[in-house]
């Protein structure tokens, strides 16, 4: 009896897995379809029209990819600068109201970023940073920072003080302690936090629109008109392009993490 119910559960699970892959296969097919009349399950003809358009240098796709990456990079940089001291304090020190502060720093995960940024919008206008690259970077820090702090708090917690102390006893200078003790412990957290930050930053639509005022064109912004009632085939090509970029970034992060684990044998 056990075996057959297990099999039923696993089959249903595989069915769900396939179901979650279905939209992706569909999207890829749609992006290369020429015509697709009802009720055909497969397109009646294929062509590369949408891909030619999307990948064409004049369509602005590559500029927007570059803008997305630059914003993601700067947001990650600011996140790291803010999260390193925060993670250090939360991961290694005990102080009054620590639990409260921890909850407070996690709040932006729970509070919709749109709510925060709508309130700040006028202030940003009076500071003259709306419709600028910097304004958008700052806006992207809001939803991403909690994840970076979380990742680094865990890393600092693992680091503790003992390892550093031991290295000091053995005569390691601060530079050598930094590179041989502290950084290897923090690297996995930094990479994981950065991966999340980059993914979240690249996915943002509404806060980029609001802070960028339509002047800062990321890949998501470029894609949006096609997705929202525009040409479906082009929209599908953009969606596939976006996920490929995300996949490449993630694989890259994953590989560097694995290499790190192997090298340092953490």
């Amino acid at each position, binding site marked *: 009896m056990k075996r057959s119910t297990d099999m039923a559960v696993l089959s249903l699970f595989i069915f769900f897995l396939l179901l979650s892959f279905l*939209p992706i296969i569909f999207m890829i097919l749609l992006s290369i379809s020429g015509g697709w009349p009802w*009720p055909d399950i497969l397109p009646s003809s294929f062509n590369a029209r949408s891909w030619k358009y999307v990948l064409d240098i004049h369509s602005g796709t590559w500029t927007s990819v570059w803008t997305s990456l630059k914003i993601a990079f700067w947001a990650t940089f600011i996140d790291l600068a803010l999260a390193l001291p925060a993670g250090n304090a939360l991961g290694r020190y005990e102080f009054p109201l620590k639990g409260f502060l921890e909850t407070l720093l996690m709040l932006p995960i729970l509070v*919709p970023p*749109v709510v*925060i940024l709508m309130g700040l919008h*006028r202030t940003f206008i009076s500071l003259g940073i709306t419709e600028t690259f910097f304004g958008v970077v700052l806006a992207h820090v809001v939803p991403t920072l909690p994840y970076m702090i979380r990742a680094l708090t865990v890393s600092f917690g693992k680091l503790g003080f003992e390892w550093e102390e031991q290295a000091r006893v053995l005569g390691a200078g601060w530079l050598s302690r930094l590179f041989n003790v502290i950084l290897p412990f923090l690297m996995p957290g930094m990479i994981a936090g950065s991966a999340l930050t980059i993914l979240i930053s690249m996915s943002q639509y509404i806060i980029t629109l609001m802070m960028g005022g339509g002047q800062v064109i990321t890949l998501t912004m470029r894609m949006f008109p096609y*997705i929202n009632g525009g040409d479906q085939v082009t929209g599908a090509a953009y*969606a596939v392009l976006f996920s490929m970029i*995300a996949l490449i970034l*993630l694989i890259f992060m994953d590989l560097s993490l694995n290499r790190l684990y192997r090298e340092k044998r953490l």
Partner: protein
Amino acid sequence: MGILFFGGIFHGLLQSLGLSPLAGDADLTLENYRILIVSHDFWRSFFLTLRIALISTFLSASLAIFALYSLFLIRIRSNRDKSVYFQRCFQISMLFPYIVAAYMIFLMFVQSGWIARILFNMGFISGMNSFPIITHEPFGWSIILAYVWKTSPFIVLLLYPLILRVEDGWIEAARVLGAGNFPIFREIVFPMMTRPLETASFIVFAYTFGAFEVPFILGVTYPKVLSVYSYQMYSSGDLSGHPMAMAINIMVLFALLIAGAFYSITTGSYFHREDRS
């Protein structure tokens, strides 16, 4: 950063109370809230948002538990690596931003979409009109589908490490005592997961309650979810919409605060403290 965060909320609060730091007028008033509270449209939006968030969270958590049980079975029946591999596959939807997820769900489930075509060719439906309308309809089914597709892998991601932590010895012991796979899961694995599951579900609830992109693409003109309602008031071009938009935002925060308090009381402590281990 704290200034950025609380500044945003504080400014919103001031504006919703009729105090605009830039316009210079300073009549403290609850008028905006009064208008909202007696507004039929606001409450329709509110309950639509609440319903979508609750159903999404419930379905997402249920699917996640089912997936975790399956991964657990794979782990104990064959091996650990295979289970890790399947777990990775289940994460696939996390690669797509919410707007793309919404778009995919739209293309799959629209009346002329892929699902309808497949059902038609299998003979389940007689034409595209007999496929139920689930995109751009007032209940928000397609919004829920998009949220479940995106968020259940997130819950699995947070809880999966616990499955790996179950030691073979425990399972052996339970086996010797005559327990089947499901009782082992229910009695050993599930109790380890309840706290992180509550946290993850609360994050999903808070997210789906306040999120913008998915309902913006898949929703209908009326009723709108609160975030879209607020944004459209804000961007209507007329500055008079701003205080009202802020008042809606503050109501969203207030609702999340109540949900958070409810969560803390039922689970008995702050959130985020238990998933440290």
